[in-house]
C-alpha cells in the first residue's frame, strides 16, 4: 500500500508540473500553430499522464487524456489545423485533468468529477466540421484566456473509503513546518458543505474546508456542518468550527485535527524541484560562511570581549544550523539505493539456490545525493557478494543448526558526523585460514608474513587488488575484482571500508561515509612552518614523541615506532616533501594514519587542532603530484593543503608487504599485559568501570562542583594557583554519567609541568592485578578491556585519553593554551 502511495504521490507531483508546462505550451501553440515540436511535446506529456493513470486505474483520467491524445494526434499528423477552438478545448481538458488530480490528491480517488462534457467537447473538435478554421463554434463559448468555465466541479460526494491518509508532505521534513502553521481558520471563507452542495474554489488552492475534514475524520456530523453553513449564509459571522464548538457538535481536538490536516499544503505546493547547481552554489556559500565563522571565532577568542564572544557563539550556532539545513536539501534517504536491492537479492539467491531474507534497518538515513551515487555500486557489490559467498546453502545451514533461510541485513545510521552503512549476513563467516592461503597463493603476502598477522589483518587482505577466495568463478562474483574496487570507490569519497566476521555467525561489511564531500572534519598539523590538513577519518591516534618513553627507533635506516607492541613504519612529512634535512626525533608528534589497510605513523612538528574545513578542489596542475586531496582555507585566511593519506602511503613506498611485515599480532599485547603485574586505579563512570595505571596518576582530588568553571567550551578548575583543564571521562566513553553530586572526584595527571584532570563518577578501588587484556579496542584512549574483580573493566591509556580530549595538550604553547584548555 505504501509503495502504491509513493507512486501516486510522485505521479501527482510530476503531473502538476507537467500541467503547468502544458498550459504554457498550449498558449505558445496558439501563437505558433505550425510548431511540430510543441505539438509533440504536448502529446508526450498527455501520453505520459494517460499511461500512468491507466496503470493506477484512474479510469476517468485515462478517458479524458485518451480523448485529448486522439485530438492531438490529429493535430500532429496535420489531419486538422490548430485553431483557437482546439486550443481552448485542450486547455479545458488540462483543467479537467487538474481537477481530477486534485480529487485524487485529496480523497485518494477520482471522485465524481464529470468528464463527459469535456470528452464530448473534444470529440466535437474531431468532427470534420470542426476542422474548418472558419467554423466559429460559438456554442462552446470558449475563450482561450478563460478556460475555467469548463472546469467541472471537484465532487466531494464520494470520497473513496480507503482514504490514503499518507500524503506527500509527511514524507518530507517540511511537513512539521507546514503543519505547525495551520491555515488561518478560514473555514468560513469557503463554505463548502461536506455534502458537496457547492463546487468550491478552495480545492484549487490545495486547501480543504474544515467542515468537510471534520465530517471525514468523524469529528462532526454532516448534518450539523450543513446546519452551521446554513447559518453562516444567513449572516452568522462566527467561523464554522466556532459555531460547531459553541453548539457542542464537535470537540476542540477534532477541530485541531481538521485544521492540522487543512494546514498541510498540497503536494505541488510543498515540494519543489530545485536546480542542483543552485544547491551547489548555496553549499559553496555556506562553506564560505563556515570559514568566516572559524576566522571570527579565532579572533574573538583573542579579543577577550564577552559581548563579541556571545555574538560569535550565536553566529556559530546559526552557521551550524544553516549548514545543516543546506546539507539537508541535498540529502536523500538511502532507501533510494536500497529499493533496488530486494530484486537483486531475490534473483541472485534463486540463481544460487539459496533462501535469503533481506532486512533493512534505517532506510530513512539520509546521504548527500552525490555520495548516494558514489555508494551505489560498492553497496550492490557487497550485497551480491554476501548472497554469493556469505550465506550458505539451505542444507549447509540446517547442518550447522541454523534456519535454512539466511538473513541479509542492510543497516544504515548516523554516527559522529559520518554515515555508516552495513551489509551483514548470518552466514558462515570469513574463513581466515582460507583467506591467508589464498593471499599466499596469489603472492600478495608470504607465508611468514601471514604468521605475523592477526585474524583481522588477514581479513583485510580481501581488499587487496587481485584477491578472491571463490573456489569457482561464478557469474555473480569471484573474478578477483570487486572488493578492492569497493574499497577504492569508498576511499575516493573520503570514506572507509571495514569487515568483521565471526566464524559460523556471519560477516559484516561496514562502509563509513562522510555526510558530505564539501565539508570534512580535519586535523591540522604543522610541518616545517607550513600547516597541512589531514582528513579526520584517516587519523587513528596521536602520539607525542618525547624521545624517552615514546621514541623513534630505526630498523636499519627506516624509522619505526613501537605502538602497543607492534612496529609502525614512520614517514617524515618534511623529508617526503624535501623541506628540511634536519632529523628531529623528539618533541615531535606522530599521527597514526590508516589508508589502504595499512597503518603508518607520520611525523609532524606540531598538532594544532581539529575543525571542520571546507574542501576546495585543486587546479589540475597539482593533480599529478597526487599527494593532495584538495586545499582549504584556515581560520586565519591562509590556504592549507589537504593531504591525500592513501597517496602518502603509496608515495612513501609503504608497500603492503613491508608494512604488514612490521606488524606483529594483537596477541603480543595481550601476552605482554598478562605477564606484567601492575597497580590499577579502578574508577566508576556511570555503569562502566575504567582502570587507570596508577603510575600515570599524579594525585586524586575531589572538587566541589560549584568550583568548576567554563573557559570556552572547556571545563576548568582553579587548582594550586593554576588553571587545571578537566576532561569528563564519561564523554570519552560515550557513557551516561551518574547523577551529579556536590563534589566530583578528579584524577590528576601531570606531565612536563602541565596537568589535566579526569573527572570520574567515583573512585572504586586500587588493585594489584595481573590484568589480561581481552580485546584490542580501537577506541581513543583505551588500551583494551580486562576482567578485574569479576567485572569487565576498560583499561585507560591516560596519555591518549588526554590527547583524545585535547590534541593540543602536549603542544608547547602554554600561554595561549591555558586559556583554551
Amino acid at each position: 500500500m505504501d509503495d502504491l502511495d509513493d507512486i501516486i504521490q510522485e505521479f501527482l507531483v510530476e503531473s502538476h508540473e507537467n500541467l503547468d508546462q502544458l498550459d504554457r505550451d498550449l498558449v505558445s501553440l496558439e501563437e505558433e500553430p505550425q510548431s511540430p515540436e510543441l505539438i509533440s511535446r504536448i502529446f508526450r506529456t498527455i501520453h505520459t499522464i494517460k499511461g500512468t493513470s491507466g496503470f493506477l486505474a484512474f479510469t476517468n483520467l485515462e478517458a479524458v487524456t485518451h480523448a485529448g491524445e486522439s485530438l492531438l494526434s490529429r493535430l500532429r499528423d496535420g489531419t486538422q489545423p490548430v485553431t483557437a477552438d482546439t486550443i481552448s478545448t485542450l486547455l479545458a481538458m488540462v483543467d479537467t485533468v487538474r481537477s481530477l488530480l486534485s480529487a485524487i490528491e485529496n480523497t485518494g480517488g477520482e471522485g465524481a468529477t464529470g468528464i463527459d462534457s469535456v470528452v464530448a467537447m473534444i470529440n466535437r473538435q474531431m468532427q470534420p466540421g470542426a476542422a474548418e478554421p472558419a467554423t466559429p463554434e460559438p456554442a462552446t463559448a470558449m475563450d482561450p484566456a478563460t478556460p475555467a468555465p469548463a472546469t467541472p466541479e471537484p465532487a466531494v460526494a464520494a470520497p473513496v473509503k480507503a482514504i490514503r491518509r499518507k500524503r506527500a508532505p509527511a514524507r518530507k521534513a517540511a511537513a512539521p513546518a507546514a503543519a505547525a502553521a495551520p491555515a488561518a481558520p478560514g473555514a468560513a471563507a469557503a463554505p463548502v458543505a461536506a455534502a458537496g452542495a457547492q463546487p468550491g474554489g478552495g480545492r484549487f488552492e490545495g486547501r480543504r474546508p474544515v467542515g468537510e475534514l471534520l465530517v471525514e475524520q468523524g469529528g462532526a456530523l454532516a448534518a450539523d456542518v450543513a446546519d452551521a453553513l446554513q447559518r453562516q449564509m444567513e449572516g452568522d459571522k462566527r467561523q464554522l468550527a466556532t459555531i460547531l464548538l459553541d453548539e457542542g457538535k464537535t470537540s476542540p481536538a477534532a477541530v485541531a485535527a481538521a485544521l492540522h490536516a487543512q494546514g498541510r499544503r498540497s503536494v505541488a505546493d510543498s515540494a519543489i524541484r530545485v536546480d542542483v547547481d543552485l544547491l551547489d552554489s548555496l553549499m559553496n556559500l555556506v562553506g564560505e560562511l563556515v570559514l568566516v565563522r572559524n576566522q571570527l571565532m579565532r579572533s574573538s577568542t583573542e579579543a577577550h570581549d564577552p559581548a563579541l564572544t556571545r555574538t560569535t557563539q550565536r553566529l556559530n550556532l546559526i552557521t551550524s544550523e544553516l549548514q545543516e539545513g543546506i546539507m539537508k536539501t541535498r540529502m536523500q534517504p538511502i532507501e533510494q539505493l536500497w529499493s533496488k536491492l530486494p530484486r537483486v537479492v531475490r534473483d541472485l539467491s534463486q540463481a544460487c539456490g539459496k533462501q535469503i531474507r533481506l532486512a533493512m534497518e534505517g532506510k530513512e538515513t539520509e546521504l548527500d545525493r552525490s555520495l548516494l551515487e558514489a555508494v551505489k555500486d560498492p553497496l550492490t557489490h557487497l550485497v551480491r557478494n554476501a548472497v554469493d559467498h556469505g550465506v550458505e546453502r539451505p542444507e549447509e545451514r540446517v547442518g550447522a543448526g541454523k534456519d535454512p533461510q539466511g538473513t541479509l541485513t542492510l543497516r544504515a545510521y548516523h554516527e559522529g558526523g559520518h554515515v555508516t552503512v552495513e551489509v551483514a549476513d548470518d552466514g558462515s563467516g570469513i574463513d581466515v585460514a582460507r583467506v591467508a592461503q589464498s593471499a599466499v597463493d596469489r603472492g600478495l603476502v608470504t607465508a611468514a608474513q601471514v604468521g605475523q598477522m592477526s585474524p583481522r589483518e588477514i581479513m583485510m587482505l580481501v581488499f587487496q587488488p587481485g584477491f578472491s577466495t571463490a573456489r569457482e568463478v561464478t557469474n555473480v562474483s569471484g573474478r578477483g575484482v570487486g572488493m578492492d574496487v569497493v574499497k577504492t570507490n569508498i576511499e575516493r569519497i573520503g570514506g572507509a571500508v571495514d569487515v568483521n566476521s565471526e566464524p559460523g555467525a556471519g560477516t559484516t561489511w561496514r562502509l563509513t561515509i562522510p555526510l558530505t564531500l564539501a565539508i570534512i572534519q580535519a586535523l591540522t598539523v604543522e610541518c616545517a612552518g607550513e600547516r597541512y590538513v589531514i582528513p579526520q577519518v584517516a587519523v587513528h591516534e596521536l602520539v607525542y614523541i618525547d624521545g624517552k618513553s615514546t621514541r623513534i627507533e630505526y630498523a636499519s635506516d627506516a624509522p619505526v615506532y613501537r605502538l602497543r607492541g607492534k612496529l609502525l613504519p614512520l614517514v617524515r612529512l618534511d623529508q617526503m616533501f624535501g623541506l628540511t634535512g634536519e632529523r628531529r626525533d623528539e618533541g615531535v608528534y606522530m599521527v597514526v594514519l590508516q589508508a589502504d589497510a595499512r597503518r603508518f605513523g607520520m611525523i609532524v612538528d606540531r598538532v594544532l587542532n581539529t575543525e571542520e574545513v571546507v574542501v576546495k578542489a585543486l587546479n589540475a596542475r597539482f593533480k599529478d603530484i597526487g599527494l593532495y586531496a584538495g586545499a582549504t582555507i584556515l581560520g586565519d585566511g591562509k590556504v592549507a593543503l589537504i593531504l591525500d593519506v592513501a597517496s602518502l602511503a603509496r608515495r612513501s613506498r609503504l608497500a603492503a608487504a613491508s608494512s604488514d611485515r612490521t606488524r606483529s599480532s594483537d596477541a603480543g599485547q595481550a601476552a605482554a599485559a598478562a605477564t606484567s603485574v601492575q597497580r590499577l586505579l579502578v574508577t566508576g563512570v556511570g555503569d562502566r568501570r575504567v582502570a587507570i595505571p596508577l603510575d600515570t596518576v599524579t594525585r586524586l582530588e575531589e572538587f566541589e562542583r560549584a568550583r568548576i568553571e567554563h573557559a570556552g567550551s572547556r571545563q576548568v578548575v582553579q587548582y594550586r594557583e593554576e588553571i587545571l583543564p578537566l576532561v569528563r571521562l564519561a564523554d570519552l566513553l560515550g557513557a551516561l554519567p551518574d547523577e551529579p553530586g556536590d563534589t566530583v572526584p578528579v584524577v590528576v595527571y601531570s606531565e612536563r609541568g602541565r596537568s589535566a584532570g579526569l573527572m570520574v563518577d567515583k573512585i572504586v578501588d586500587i588493585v594489584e592485578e595481573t590484568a589480561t587484556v581481552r580485546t584490542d579496542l580501537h577506541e581513543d584512549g583505551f588500551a583494551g578491556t580486562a576482567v578485574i574483580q569479576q567485572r569487565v573493566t576498560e583499561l585507560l591509556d591516560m596519555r591518549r585519553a588526554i590527547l583524545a580530549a585535547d590534541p593540543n595538550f602536549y603542544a608547547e604553547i602554554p600561554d595561549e593554551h591555558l586559556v583554551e584548555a
Partner: protein
Amino acid sequence: MPTRQYATFEVAGQLFGVEVEAVQEVLSFGEYTAVPLSSPAVGGLFNLRGQVIAAVDLRVQLGLPRQALDGPVMNVILRGDDEPVSLLVDRIGEVIDLADSEFEPPPETLTGPTRELVLSTVKLQDRLMLAVDVARAMDTARVAA
C-alpha cells in the same frame, strides 16, 4: 586604426604586457602557501576572497631564480580557462593603448625561456614592451619539477 589595451608590468627590469581582457584584477598579496613537490614555477597558493588561487612565478617561467615570497608581491590575476591564475610580478605598470601596427615580432636574438613566452615586441617611446602569451605563462608544466 584599431587599438588594443595592454596591462603592463615589470619583471626583472623588463616591461611585459598582457591584453586587458585577460586580466581579472591586480592586487598585492603577502601570504602564500607553498605546494611541495609541485613545479618550481608554482609560487604558491593564496586565498582570493575564499577562492584558492595558484600563483605562477613568472621569474621561474622566464628562466630566472624564484621570487622571494616573504613579503607582499604583486599579482596579475588572469582569467584562466576554468579558474583564475595569478602571475607573480615585480611591479605593475600602466594600461596603454596600442595600435596593431605597433606590434612587431620578437627579435631573432631573443632566445631561451623568455622567447617561448613572448608573442611580439612593442616599441614604446622610451622602452620596449614584450607582449606575453597568456596561456604559456600560466602553463607550469613547461618547467620540470
